[in-house]
């Protein structure tokens, strides 16, 4: 159901026809005044078309040139990514990209740390123990002396077992 304003507009534009036209015109209290208003509206339309319709774009070629430049600025993205979705994504893609870079960096760092720590373990033997291992018992002083070492790396326990040792080497205390 059209309102009066809607029917009036269609009537002014000459697009009301048939039964609807007859009904509308019959409903007008003063048809002569309505006709005058319609003529007035049509004159207004002609005036607007004549005065405003003539406005043109000066420097048309420069307008297109400027637009081409602006499109070309975005063209880099377009040529790298033919799909328009990629252009739209280009901004928010950086966030997950940064996130992934961070996660991967952290993983690499942790892996390196574990490797370095593992490599350090064999060298955890004390310098003191190494010196004892390298010490030779003088066969003249202790001819039957034997030296045994038991080491459990996991528990970090080392047992030095000596037998037949008659006296400690003189330089042992110094070491």
């Amino acid at each position: 159901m059209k309102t009066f304003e809607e029917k009036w507009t269609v009537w002014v534009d000459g697009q009301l026809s048939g039964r609807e036209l007859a009904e509308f015109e019959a409903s007008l209290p003063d048809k002569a005044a309505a006709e005058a208003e319609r003529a007035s509206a049509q004159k207004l339309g002609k005036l607007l078309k004549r005065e405003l319709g003539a406005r043109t774009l000066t420097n048309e070629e420069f307008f297109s040139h400027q637009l081409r430049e602006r499109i070309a600025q975005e063209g880099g993205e377009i040529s790298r990514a033919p799909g328009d979705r990629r252009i739209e994504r280009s901004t928010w893609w950086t966030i997950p990209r940064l996130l992934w870079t961070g996660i991967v960096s952290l993983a690499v760092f942790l892996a390196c740390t574990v490797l370095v720590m593992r490599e350090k373990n064999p060298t955890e033997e004390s310098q003191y123990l190494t010196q004892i291992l390298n010490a030779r018992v003088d066969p003249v002083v202790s001819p039957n002396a034997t030296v045994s070492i038991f080491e459990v790396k996991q528990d970090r326990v080392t047992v030095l077992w000596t037998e037949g040792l008659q006296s400690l080497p003189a330089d042992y205390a110094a070491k």
Partner: protein
Amino acid sequence: MQTEATPAQADVSELDLVRRCQAGDTEAFDELVTRYRTRVFGMIYNMVHSEQDAWDLAQDSFLKAWRSIKRFRGRSSFYTWIYRIVMNVTIDWLRKKQIKGAGTEFDDAIQLRQVDPASKTVPKTEALPYETMERDEIRVRIDKAIAQLSSEQRAVILMKEIEDMQYHEIAEALGCSIGTVMSRLFYARKKLQTLLRDVYENI
């Protein structure tokens, strides 16, 4: 609706150009711009009454159209589709300007006298000075009258009277119902008739 297309250009269908644009062909888009730039600029100019602003808004509208051309499905004509973009950009700009309250909307009334935008369409014979003055005055009166309409009423009356667009095309361009278009047209005409009656009755 009329376009700027020459017979040679008209051979290339609009839909074909749009499809090429959707494949990333900037030359095809350039051709569409050539067809519609003057009408788009003129429409925006009549809405904002500033040559510089109209230029910028027309540029922004075409750029926006280029960015979203892949979303154009061809259900309406390209012209109606781009008009929707133009109207969104322009009405949005007018609303922001109103909120900012920066000056009057008719700062360019003086420019109209200096640069005649219709210089290409007026007869080549020199107009008499008083005729030029009279015409300028009429334009200023029209611009001031249009400025008293809401941006939506402006858009509707300009699309109807200048562009000869159908109700459904205007409705599509503005994203409203046909009834709303008719209603806005009714009130816009009434207001302009009140403000400009002496102008068009005495010509």
